[in-house]
């Protein structure tokens, strides 16, 4: 059975600097997988290659059995690859509802329409509101992102990605910048995400990683150091040396 997402020998170099070296990675359907590694390990570069922001120097990316290596971002999204950003990438002067509706409309093919008012597309509106309700954001639908607390902005990040109904969701540090007291809310949301979505989370918050992920891949200097269950990773001495130090949680 083909994986939801797979990379084969993925490499990326900027001149003499290699930021990704022969990454073979497999994300199973419905998986809860974490990608961790110290700063500069190449995690975001890896996500950028997966989503088509950066072309790999060599190697292949396969989504649901289809080679998407040469595909543009838009086509990858259409095939079910969604992502969130480490630093909020929201439509700041638009309302929370419009932020999500933009993604829903794009997925439904409504976005290029010019003759009927956006608010008359009740299906887009209803689906967006439903999504906001599941994330506890329904009351903020009319609030502009500029006026929204940061923790809720992180939830809107996830809501936009969910509006695309992805088969594979890449979450780039969903709890980044969120005070630890509020990060439990992000975790609650992640726990409630539909089971069929394969999720790859990149996160520095080890509490969140070890509570959420069923498998963990450790990336160091652009190479996969080790992959395993949270238990295996927690006990791995190499991981302790390069990354976790004494702070690991099992």
């Amino acid at each position, binding site marked *: 059975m083909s994986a939801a997402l797979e990379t084969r020998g993925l490499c990326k170099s900027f001149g003499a600097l290699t930021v990704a070296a022969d990454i073979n990675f497999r994300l199973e359907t419905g998986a809860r997988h974490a990608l961790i590694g110290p700063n500069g390990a190449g995690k975001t570069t890896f996500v950028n290659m997966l*989503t088509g*922001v950066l072309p790999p120097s060599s190697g292949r990316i396969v989504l649901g059995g289809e080679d998407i290596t040469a595909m543009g*971002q*838009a*086509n*990858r*999204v*259409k095939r079910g690859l969604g*992502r969130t*950003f480490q630093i909020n*990438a*929201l*439509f*700041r*002067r*638009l*309302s929370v*509802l*419009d932020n999500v*509706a*933009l*993604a829903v*409309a*794009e*997925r439904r093919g*409504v*976005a*290029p*329409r*010019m*003759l*009927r*008012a*956006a*608010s*008359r*597309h009740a299906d*887009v*509106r209803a689906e*967006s509101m439903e999504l906001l309700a599941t994330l506890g954001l329904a009351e903020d*639908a*009319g609030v502009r992102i500029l006026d929204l607390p940061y923790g809720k902005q992180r939830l809107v990040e996830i809501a*936009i990605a969910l*509006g*695309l109904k992805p088969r594979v969701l890449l979450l780039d540090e969903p709890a980044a910048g969120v005070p630890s007291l509020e990060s439990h809310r992000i975790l609650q949301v992640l726990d409630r995400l539909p089971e069929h979505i394969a999720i790859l989370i990149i996160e520095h918050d080890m509490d969140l990683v070890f509570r959420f992920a069923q498998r963990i891949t450790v990336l160091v200097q652009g190479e996969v150091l080790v992959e395993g269950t949270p238990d295996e990773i927690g006990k791995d001495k190499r991981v302790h040396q390069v990354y976790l130090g004494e702070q690991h949680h099992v």
Partner: protein
Amino acid sequence: MSTHAGGYSADPRVRWIEFLPWIVAVAAFFALPEYLSLGARILIYVLYALSLDLIVGYAGIITLGHSAYFGLGAYVAGILAAKAGFHDPFVQLAAAGAAGALLGISTGAIILRTRALTLLMLTLAITSVLMEVANKATALTGGADGLSGVVVAPILGLFKFDIFGKTAYLYCLLVLLLGWWLVRKMIYSPFGTSLRGVRENSLRMHAIGAPVYWRLVLVYTLSATIAGVAGGLITQTNQFVGLNVLSFESAGELLVMLILGGVGRIYGAFVGPVVYLIAQDLLAKQFPEYWYFGIGTMLVLVVMFARGGILGILDGTLAKLRRKP
């Protein structure tokens, strides 16, 4: 007169205050018959500014070369009327719009691959190149002397363009009404919302699968079409085309009008040209040598103290009044 931002929760129905510009325009027709020529010019510039607002205010495309499309429309209408024997005003206008569209799609497809300062310089280059072409192609355009002998047949064979500008005024008003209706419809549509998405965060629009480049090319072409029509109108009402329609100054002046009225508000494109052209008319009569000083002062004040333009000031004042118990 709050911002017309559209979106999935915006009521697209025309509000009572949106009838105001049209009531004023019709009232001006009856109350100020001696100013109808200036009035027609203002209406044309409103249409021209609307086309600019679509790309600058809603799609976030910064340009200093919108006069290329306006000027091309003006010359196409003029050449058809003066050289090719096409005197029907609607044919001239359709050709002006089509020329604007063609230039819009061909230049937009190239320049919209760039951003920021590069984009700004390329827009400037396009209008400069076109102006030089018009300057050299004297057989067609009349060069620096301009293109005269523009003949426009009566509208529908019934309404002749008169020297008082009555027909021209009403004709421009009707074309503007159509242009406004189209632009407003677009802004309230899902397409309009997606343009605002591109303006706010093109990176995220890519990440939700939007074909950002093609959306920009499309709106740029539509805007160029409207600018071309506005150019056609200026030829028909002046019955003359001068090189200035293609000048960088004309594009800059239009941007100033839009900033003055308020960018990204639809009606900023109405208020800006009205204030600018009336101020220009009055100041030029009072201070023929220094009139630009007054315009400059007005712009500096708006940029420093009212970033949302005149409509921004109105919005702010209304919001304060509403907050007071």
